[in-house]
């Protein structure tokens, strides 16, 4: 019987050196790529379910946390988000109206964190006078998508928190 002691920890050979600004180690694991058939199936299913989401890339190597906090290099469990946001000096915004390009949106379902993405722009719909945020996010081991903020798999729940690392003029 072989236990991997501290999976995702510094001694795990599937992890990479990754730390917060405060130099706290961020547990992570590089996930192996999925087979082309699996990746194709994933693209097809979300093309059907979320036709307006635009696929940017498809790989299983990193997740949404890896996209936002590790430059697409590895997989980070969402449980570590509090440590990362605190150590990296993020502050929570009062709501969607305060969020700007480059800020982070956190999705929750039944109060549990499910997903995280980066705000990359806004979609104006002049006919109905609405403005929707555009988000770049990685859907688990499936694709990386550019999508409207609420155009995500139902399982992600809803955008619940907005965070920024912006520093204002001193």
């Amino acid at each position, binding site marked *: 019987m072989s236990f991997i002691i501290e*999976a995702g920890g510094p001694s795990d050979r599937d992890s990479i050196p990754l730390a917060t600004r405060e130099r706290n180690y961020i547990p992570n694991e590089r996930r*192996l790529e999925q*087979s082309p058939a*699996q990746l194709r199936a994933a693209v097809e*299913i979300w093309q059907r379910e979320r036709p307006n989401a635009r696929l940017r890339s498809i790989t299983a190597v990193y*997740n949404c946390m890896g996209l936002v906090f590790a430059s697409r290099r590895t997989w980070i469990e*969402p449980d570590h988000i509090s440590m990362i946001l605190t150590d990296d000096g993020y502050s929570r915004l009062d709501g969607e109206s305060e969020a700007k390009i480059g800020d982070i949106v956190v999705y929750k379902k039944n109060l549990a964190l499910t997903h995280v993405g980066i705000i990359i722009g806004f979609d104006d719909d002049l006919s109905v006078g609405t403005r929707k945020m555009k988000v770049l996010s990685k859907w*688990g081991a499936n694709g990386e998508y550019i999508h409207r903020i609420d155009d995500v798999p139902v399982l992600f729940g809803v955008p619940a928190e907005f965070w920024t690392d912006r520093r204002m003029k001193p």
Partner: protein
Amino acid sequence: MKIEQAMNEIESLELCARVNIASGYRIFLQLIQEEESVRILLRELNSREQMSKILQMVLNRISDILQKQSDPRYENPSDTAIAIYLWVISVKDLNLAKAAAAFVDQAPRCWWAAKVSHEVLSNEPFRSDSRTSDWNRVLIPQASKSVTPTIQAPLPVPPFKNYQWNTEKFENEYKAA
């Protein structure tokens, strides 16, 4: 949906894609529990008469899947199915799940299955009072009629074809760990 259909669904690319939008282990566990096919499997396992037969079927399925060759460049294509099967067994019979997890833990290129097996293996220790009866009940159905199965009884045919079960050794290793 019949049990065979449910198992085919669990092993399908479609289900794999659906639950692999999970960004973390806890979310993955939530997602698999929302799958109709997984619920059917669990429901069937709730029937006392069916339980042994279905557990045996699931164990055999894990064994068959793990013996399939797959491209070493990629993750095990059955990773999600193995993880689901192992989780289902753990819900019904933790002792049996521990034995299956020890086997799954050796399988290369697994992601969710490795996480489920680690969790199962690090869960509460074997209940020595139930070990023999649990094993016999599942692995040799006729033993379920026996009132006092003993540890001296010959070990049943292993459900995993290439794996020699040694429950005593496994229990000792587990206790040591």
